[in-house]
């Protein structure tokens, strides 16, 4: 078995052993179909209900507002399609240049289907401009879809301030909160958000399960059409083990949110600060102003640009030491393009290609951070020695 110092938790997370334990019975004895007309199936319906409450509790929602999906991508696709179908006359969408492909590529596709899309720019700090948002809105705007927190930089957008502007124009507000849920507290009861996506495998539940929050009263049309599961809002036999797992993971996240978040933030800050101190020519990407880090970032993420060298080479060197990190997002990591997020931030070419994301979890230890701190200077130095740009 190959284990590692896993600092790639924005790509996916370790499933909490308690979560595995909670779901196991539904992979074995309790295999019934919750929609069945016998009590063997019916008993399973009850745990689905409980899991729905657990997920609702994590984001301050009512359980009737939760639809289980198969992943964050499905949630994003479903939310966007539903919002547009609910307002067939409006043909304008506002989003940002730094969304995840699960939002960005849907928007791109919609442009070929008669929609106009405004992609809000971000500044060097990775932040959007609320005035640009306000200026882009019209009575024709059906949907504003903006992520809660960016997966690559951890930059958090001012969601409620955005929401106020969205509401002024009567548009629907969708938020991709895949990176935020479980990392920062959310409360839908006092929120302007209409639709919110989350994904299980980013919060220590397994892959293959997610949820979409749909505010009561917001018209919803299903993306997957068929049977009457999820009260007609998502057809397909319920992924019971996945649902139970997501419920349990949500319960655990809620219980430990403040404590684990603090710990992760401390570790992240130490990692970041020490790397910047011990390695020349590097800088944090996102949420930095006049050289100072501000507060609009996820507690677990740091994205650091190392000048003159190339990200993949850094990752492979780290891999040699059993350290897992990433450049860009996992689902685009096969591509050779530099991250669209960092490009939108206007990073200079010198750091654009050499940026690495470390993303921590509540499993990250001091010792692991120490190891990274011990090996990084050597790795960077070696690669820079190979680089023709180093001495320019």
């Amino acid at each position: 078995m190959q284990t590692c110092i896993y600092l790639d938790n924005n790509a996916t997370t370790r499933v909490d052993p308690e979560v595995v334990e909670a779901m196991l019975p539904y992979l074995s004895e309790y295999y019934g179909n919750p929609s069945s007309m016998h009590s063997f199936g019916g008993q399973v319906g009850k745990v689905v209900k409980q899991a729905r409450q657990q997920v609702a509790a994590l984001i301050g929602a009512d359980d009737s507002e939760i639809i289980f999906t198969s992943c964050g991508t499905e949630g994003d696709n479903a939310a966007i399609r539903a919002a547009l179908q609910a307002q067939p006359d409006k043909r304008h969408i506002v989003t940002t240049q730094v969304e995840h492909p699960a939002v960005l590529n849907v928007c791109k596709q919609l442009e070929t289907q008669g929609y106009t899309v405004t992609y809000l720019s971000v500044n060097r700090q990775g932040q959007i401009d609320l005035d640009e948002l306000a200026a882009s809105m019209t009575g024709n705007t059906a949907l504003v879809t903006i992520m809660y927190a960016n997966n690559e930089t951890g930059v958090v957008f001012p969601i409620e301030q955005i929401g106020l502007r969205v509401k002024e124009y009567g548009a629907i507000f969708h938020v991709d909160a895949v990176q935020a849920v479980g990392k920062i507290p959310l409360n839908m009861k006092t929120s302007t958000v209409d639709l919110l996506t989350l994904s299980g495998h980013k919060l220590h539940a397994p892959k293959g399960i997610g949820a979409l929050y749909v505010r009561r009263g917001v018209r919803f049309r299903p993306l997957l059409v068929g049977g009457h599961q999820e009260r007609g809002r998502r057809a397909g036999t319920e992924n019971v083990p996945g649902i139970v797992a997501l419920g349990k993971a949500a319960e655990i996240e809620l219980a430990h949110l403040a404590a684990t978040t603090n710990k992760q933030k401390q570790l992240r800050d130490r990692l970041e600060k020490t790397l910047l101190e011990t390695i020349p020519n590097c800088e944090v990407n996102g949420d930095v102003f006049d050289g100072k880090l501000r507060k609009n970032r996820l507690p677990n993420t740091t994205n650091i640009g190392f000048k003159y060298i190339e990200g993949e080479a850094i990752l492979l060197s780290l891999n040699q030491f059993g350290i897992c990190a990433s450049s860009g997002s996992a689902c685009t990591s096969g591509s050779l393009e530099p991250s669209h997020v960092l490009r939108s931030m206007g990073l200079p070419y010198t750091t654009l290609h050499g940026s690495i994301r470390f993303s921590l979890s509540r499993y990250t230890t001091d010792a692991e951070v120490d190891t990274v701190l011990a090996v990084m200077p050597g790795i960077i130095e070696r690669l820079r020695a190979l680089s023709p740009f180093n001495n320019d």
Partner: protein
Amino acid sequence: MWDYTDKVMELFYNPKNQGLLEDDREPGIAVVFGEVGSIACGDALRLHLKIEVNSDKILDSRFQTFGCTSAIASSSALTELIKGLTLDEALKVTNKEIADFLGGLPEAKMHCSVMGQEALEAAIYKYRGIPLAVHEEDEGALVCSCFGISESKIRRVIR
């Protein structure tokens, strides 16, 4: 899966007053039955009453039901509820009382209790020689519209 109360299950598994009442032509006693529904609709109830002519009292009652669990339990509950009542009193029994007697019914199954009320009305009107008012086709809250079954004459008296 329907969430049935214990009382529903009990009356389903061990229904009281099932079957029919023979008319023994006893003096001072009348035996009638009223019917609602049909086999085409998927549910039907035949309710038999034994009435003491002088007092207008229901001495006994039996049912025969074609239908689901709650239809059977509701029918049984109704026969229990009306025994000893006068006909006028019995006419006041609502389907809600039937449901309450059962400790509640799932919302989608409330209509199963309406059938009892209607069969009772049919029986008493027949006994009294009053023509039965034709019920409006009540569309009610559709539980499933996906197959557009509205052309069938399935009864939809909800709540």
